[in-house]
């Protein structure tokens, strides 16, 4: 493993497989009466979250604690960031207190790369702007592998806000790397130019896109990142792109429905689909802890070569 986990683009297929295999072992720890191993005893992990997050932050914190790391989370709303401190200054000040790893969530694409260049600590990207969210893609891949026992050759359809989604970028990179056929679909205003370069096929019709899909992944409509009008109304979006039972019926009979959360029920997904038999949305959350334990464990070791240390 490299020093940091910044992007799926940096990972080889072997490293991805190692992370997924390690996740398998980590998952068992969560089922023990004592859900803790001493592996990261004496390591300090700082969770620096510049954006609101329930799932990812809780998931990282639980993963860190299960590995016995000392952990603290800094919600930016109560920190000196409000007094005007820059990201770099905040990071350097945290670095001065000798943490071993920093988990960063930031609204700007490339924020994790910036810290990676200036910090001695290992940096884990927990979502940077519209760029990447690598641990989400890893937990998605793990969940898919659990159900389908493979990734290669699967048809994965991703529907929703393709423009603002870092989850899409990480998932598309990872799944195509492992040999899945990824088809994406969303309103033309939310399809970024050049998205084909991720190795995905773009479809303009949901009905066509979900046909024979092994996996359907919905992406949240990110109202907070939308400064303009990307579609006429939420109701129209749901009618055109929302995942309903009728649309799910077009996919393969053993299709699984995924959503990285938080869900907008009645916007990108119908409630009866979100809670229905094909939904693995809560399994994704459960697997998130194990995936993050695997990443923390693997990053805590030595780096590949001395020059990078």
């Amino acid at each position, binding site marked *: 493993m490299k020093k940091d986990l910044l992007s799926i683009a940096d990972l080889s297929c072997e490293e991805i497989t190692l992370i997924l295999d390690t996740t398998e072992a980590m998952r068992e720890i969560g089922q023990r009466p004592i859900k803790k191993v001493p592996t990261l005893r004496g390591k300090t992990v700082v969770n620096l979250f510049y954006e609101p997050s329930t799932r990812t932050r809780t998931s990282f914190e639980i993963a860190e604690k299960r590995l016995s790391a000392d952990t603290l989370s800094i919600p930016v709303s109560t920190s000196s960031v409000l007094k005007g401190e820059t990201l770099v200054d905040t990071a350097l000040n945290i670095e001065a207190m000798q943490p071993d790893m920093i988990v960063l969530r930031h609204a700007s694409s490339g924020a994790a790369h910036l810290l990676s260049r200036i910090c001695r600590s290992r940096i884990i990207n927990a979502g940077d702007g519209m760029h990447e969210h690598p641990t989400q893609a890893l937990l998605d891949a793990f969940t898919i592998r659990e159900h389908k026992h493979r990734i290669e050759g699967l048809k994965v359809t991703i529907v929703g806000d393709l423009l603002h989604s870092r989850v899409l970028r990480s998932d598309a990179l990872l799944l195509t790397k492992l040999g899945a056929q990824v088809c994406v679909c969303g309103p033309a205003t939310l399809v970024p130019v050049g998205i084909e370069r991720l190795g995905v096929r773009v479809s303009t019709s949901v009905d066509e896109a979900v046909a024979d899909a092994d996996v359907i992944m919905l992406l949240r409509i990110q109202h907070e990142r939308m400064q303009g009008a990307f579609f006429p109304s939420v109701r129209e979006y749901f009618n055109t792109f929302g995942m309903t039972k009728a649309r799910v019926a077009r996919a393969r009979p053993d299709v699984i429905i995924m959503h990285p959360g938080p869900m907008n029920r009645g916007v990108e997904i119908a409630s009866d689909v979100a809670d229905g038999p094909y939904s693995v949305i809560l399994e994704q959350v459960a697997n998130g802890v194990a995936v993050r334990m*695997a990443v923390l464990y693997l990053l805590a070791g*030595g780096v590949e070569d001395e020059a990078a240390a």
Partner: protein
Amino acid sequence: MTDAVPRARSPQSPNHPITQLPNSAAGVLVTVVMDADRMSRTLTRIAHEIVERNRGIEELALVGIRTRGVPIAKRLAHAIGEIAGHEVPTGALDITLYRDDLMRHAVGPQPVVRSTEIPFSIDDKRILLVDDVLYTGRTIRAALDALIDFGRPKVIQLVVLVDRGHRELPIKADYVGKNLPTSASQSVQVHLMEIDGKDEVEIQET
């Protein structure tokens, strides 16, 4: 060790097939100290000892340490089952996350973690911890820590196929297949049919 059979291995040179020296560039000197037949009899003997020393085998459970402790535990379970007519539950323990040498190296990848599977409660059980080779004792220390996280067994006993000495911690096996005096420069390899395609214990000069 009257049954020790020294023989040279890989790459075979017709000129000096047996007398190859350790550290010679040509290969490693390997001595087989236990063959398949002897291994089978040794495990049967240990199974008898276990039954003899643990009255009421309903409380017994075997936990093998990954990798090679696991098939040995399964074989012992089978042998105990044949002797006592009672199937003994078997689990697999991976001790990687409890190792005392993790994070001590600035370079190199983390050891691979494999899954632990103990599909029964160890509370109030008589646990037989099984490994192939007992050496420094550090693996057993890690395994004891790991086991305690699963509950509170009544007793933990240690079973090893080979005890090669050189302990670094105050740990002693309760059942030993073979005591094998070695030097620290030697390495002891246990090969098992389930993993390596043959049953054999050998000493390699390095």
